[in-house]
């Protein structure tokens, strides 16, 4: 009996052709990786990218356009690749190896040493890099190109899959636009503007600190300041992004405006990662781990950035107003104001979590005071700040966001990084939980506890636990992708921005029962 497999997992003939074309496209890159020196790199790179794209389009068209509009989750748990089966593990291992080489052994991809020309895979991408930025490719250019292609082609697939759902379509157009424009093309064009005399840091402008943890490093700040008005404007934009723009948008729309509409990590998770969204762990235990880990990363990145900036500031206030001590006092004041406001106005909602918040706050403040007393010019607490930074870059920037975050898509789901590691998501989430109009509204007593919402929540939120209590979902981790609402068979969930009043509304007795009983039991 167990030999008789469900039929719905089989690929159609057309889908197999699509897969074959895509694999040939990937094979060209593999050959380049093994140092096959293609005579006409422009031609072969184009061929490779076109075949990968074409293969995905053929596959998607056949998979979705041959069927009625609607939810397309048939056989998800029967597919080896989507249910941690053989192909899932193979894909996970290949992706993980790719990331390890990318971060730690880029020369294996053919990255040139000083004064040499690129070889291998990176050389294959040289023509495109010259076209865009005027310079040779790097491992990051190869990665950026493949990343963008992945978001575009799997975004196309996602749009077909959810073609009945305008919310999902628009959201996907948005992540495709921001990846192609802001993350890929604009930085390349910015690079083109640079010369020997003008050196502006070129980067993904929507990549905001603390996700972009190196944004305030000394060399970057120096470059910003020395690049005239535009450089200064970018530096101010970088600071305003996290302290002004982000809070306003998150207040109005929840953190989804960033995490599932703009962010590149989110963009990949929502497109290429979509087939793995159901693999996230929904247990309460995972939720506990998530809260400790992600908030520890926030504390880490805050201290690391503070220490790095502290280390390059001067002591003499007559030279520049922002000295080491002014900076430390500034950071401490800002954190105190935030902490005090939360404790005064939101204490009730935080309940037990307030204690953890207080612990985190005092740890940071004590470390800041410690910095003042126990630090030399280059080190903080006798620890070299560059070591602090490189540890963060290695542990969080490379291992967590890349190797585990994407490499483990087929094992832990597509939002491991966003859920457990991203300090930006944690900061936005904190605000979403306490100061935002966003929530997922539950529709009265219509929930049948089926579990589709929880199963397909990529952030591992047990959506059903709220829906079956008639309670709105107001969770800091929710990225607002909207899939819970889409897969709900009874129209119970809706993502909305509404007033703050009555946003959290737990009910023990649901709408539909005796009105007097509801009043009696639900009064808190």
């Amino acid at each position, binding site marked *: 009996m167990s030999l008789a497999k469900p039929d719905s997992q089989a690929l159609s003939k057309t889908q197999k052709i699509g897969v074959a074309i895509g694999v040939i496209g990937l094979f060209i890159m593999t050959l380049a990786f093994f140092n096959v020196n293609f005579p006409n790199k422009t031609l072969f790179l184009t061929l490779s990218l076109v075949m990968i794209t074409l293969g995905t389009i053929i596959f998607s068209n056949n998979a979705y356009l041959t069927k*009625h509009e609607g939810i397309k989750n*048939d056989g998800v748990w029967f597919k080896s690749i989507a249910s941690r089966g053989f192909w899932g593990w193979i894909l996970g291992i290949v992706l993980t190896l790719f990331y390890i080489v990318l971060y730690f052994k880029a020369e294996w991809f053919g990255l040139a040493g000083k004064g040499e020309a690129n070889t291998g895979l990176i050389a294959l991408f040289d023509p495109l890099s010259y076209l865009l930025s005027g310079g040779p490719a790097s491992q990051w250019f190869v990665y950026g190109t493949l990343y963008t292609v992945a978001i575009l082609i799997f975004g196309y697939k996602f749009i077909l899959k959810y073609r009945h759902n305008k919310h999902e379509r628009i959201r996907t157009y948005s992540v495709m636009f921001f990846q192609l424009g802001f993350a890929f093309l604009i930085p390349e064009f910015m690079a083109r503007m640079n010369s020997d005399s003008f050196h502006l840091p070129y980067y993904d402008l929507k990549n905001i600190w603390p996700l972009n943890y190196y944004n305030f490093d000394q060399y970057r700040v120096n470059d910003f300041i020395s690049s005239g008005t535009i450089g200064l404007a970018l530096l101010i934009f970088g600071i305003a992004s996290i302290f002004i723009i982000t809070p306003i948008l998150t207040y109005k729309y929840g953190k989804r405006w960033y995490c599932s509409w703009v962010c590149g990590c989110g963009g990949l998770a929502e497109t290429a990662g979509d087939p793995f969204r159901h693999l996230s762990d929904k247990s309460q235990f995972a939720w506990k781990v998530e809260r400790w880990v992600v908030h520890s990363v926030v504390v880490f990145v805050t201290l690391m950035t503070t220490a790095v900036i502290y280390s390059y500031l001067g002591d003499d206030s007559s030279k520049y107003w922002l000295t080491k001590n002014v900076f430390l006092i500034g950071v401490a004041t800002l954190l105190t104001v935030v902490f005090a406001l939360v404790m005064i106005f939101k204490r009730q909602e935080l309940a037990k979590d307030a204690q953890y918040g207080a612990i985190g706050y005092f740890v940071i403040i004590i470390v800041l005071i410690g910095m003042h007393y126990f630090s030399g010019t280059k080190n903080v607490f006798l620890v070299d700040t560059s070591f602090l930074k490189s540890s963060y870059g290695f542990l969080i920037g490379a291992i967590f966001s890349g190797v585990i975050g994407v490499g483990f898509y087929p094992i832990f789901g597509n939002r491991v990084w966003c859920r457990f590691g991203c300090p930006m998501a944690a900061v936005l989430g904190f605000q979403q939980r306490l100061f935002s109009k966003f929530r997922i509204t539950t529709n009265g007593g219509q929930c049948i506890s089926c579990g589709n919402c929880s199963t397909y929540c990529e952030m591992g939120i047990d959506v059903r636990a709220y829906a079956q209590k008639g309670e709105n979902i107001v969770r800091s981790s929710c990225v607002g992708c909207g899939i819970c609402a889409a897969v709900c068979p009874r129209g119970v969930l809706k993502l909305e921005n509404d007033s703050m009043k009555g946003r959290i509304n737990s009910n023990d007795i649901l709408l539909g*029962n005796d009105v007097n009983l509801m009043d009696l039991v639900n009064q808190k």
Partner: protein
Amino acid sequence: MEHIVIIGNGISGITAARHIRKLSDKKITIISAETEHFFSRTALMYIYMGHMKYEHTKPYEDWFWKKNRIDLKFGFVKTIDTATNTLHFDNSETLQYDKLIVSTGSKSNKFGWKGQDLDGVIGLYSKQDLDQLEALAPNKEVCQRAVVVGGGLIGIELTEMLHTRNIPVTLLVREDNFWDGVLPLGDAQMINRHIKNHGIDLRLKSNLKEISADENGRANAVIIEETSETISCNLVGLTAGVTPNIDMIKTTGIETDSGVLVNRYLETNIEHIYAIGDCAQQREPIGNRKPVEAVWYTGRMMGETVAQTICGNRIPYNPGHWFNSAKFFDIEYQTYGWVFAKPKEGHAHFHWKHDDDTKSITIEYHESSNEFLGINTFGIRMKHEVFDRWLTEKRTADYVMEHLKEANFDPEFYKTFERNILNSYSKQFITT
């Protein structure tokens, strides 16, 4: 400590247990012979379709029960000795109770068809039914055709399930249109077309005459009453509704009819024994409701109510405005208040349908007073809370049509149809 025993771990029994725990420290034991833990019955279809695994259908993690001191016992109750408050299990174990809640749910209807108990004939209600289905119809090679008998909510679910594994399905519907005992004609016919659009062999006005067997005693064909046509198949799904699962109760002193008879307090004829959910039958029907209501929401509501009574706050089961929902392949359905297949005397219907044939609404209202009585909505999500309020406030149909936008619950950016609906509603009165 008072011992509350609950037979059946479906939504009604579990809800009762949870609320008793919230209200008291009583000892609680839940007995089931179906599964060790509570799962959502309505989600069974998604397991077969590959959307979820069994563990995803469990609304509470397994540690929940111990933490809340709710004992779970896997076993089959053979009989109840109501004189000594003792349950007797089929393995001759016994269990004493102080108060007993019967929430044994339903079983599939069988109307005495010839061949209804053959191998290869299944219902779709329990986890066991699902396991059997998986064994009988894993794919289209093993199951080359299935016949589903019964044009209701479970019938269309089973049809959709089999369809996802590319198994050809014939759906036999006794009535003129799909579920037309409940749905008004316009709605029912739209669903007819939707079913056919998915490639289902929908047979209206077709009764099952008998199921024939091969030499091994396995179902191999059905014969249709009206045409005497024989349709060969490897699987027959009997989904012509459900009936209370109370064979065991009938051997006790607890009074039954088609279900366990209860008063408005959900009390049976025997003190300290209550019945809730699918298996309970109201002695006097409540409003337009049927005496037996086999619906998820009513089961939950009865559980919420009986917990109060057991914990000292004796209150009647007093459900509010009727509501329900379902999904027919890709079309979601919600209903609030009462819309009957044919308008009741003095009532009228207004029906609107979108050109794409996947969205429609029907409202029922009082002809002379224009009072709004209920709505069926297909393909457009609407807010429970808003309709509940409008029904309580006894709003007119005119008011509801003009304010329909307030009730919209579709995702953001969706196209809305309120203006279109209002125009067509207003036109109706100009022409008549």
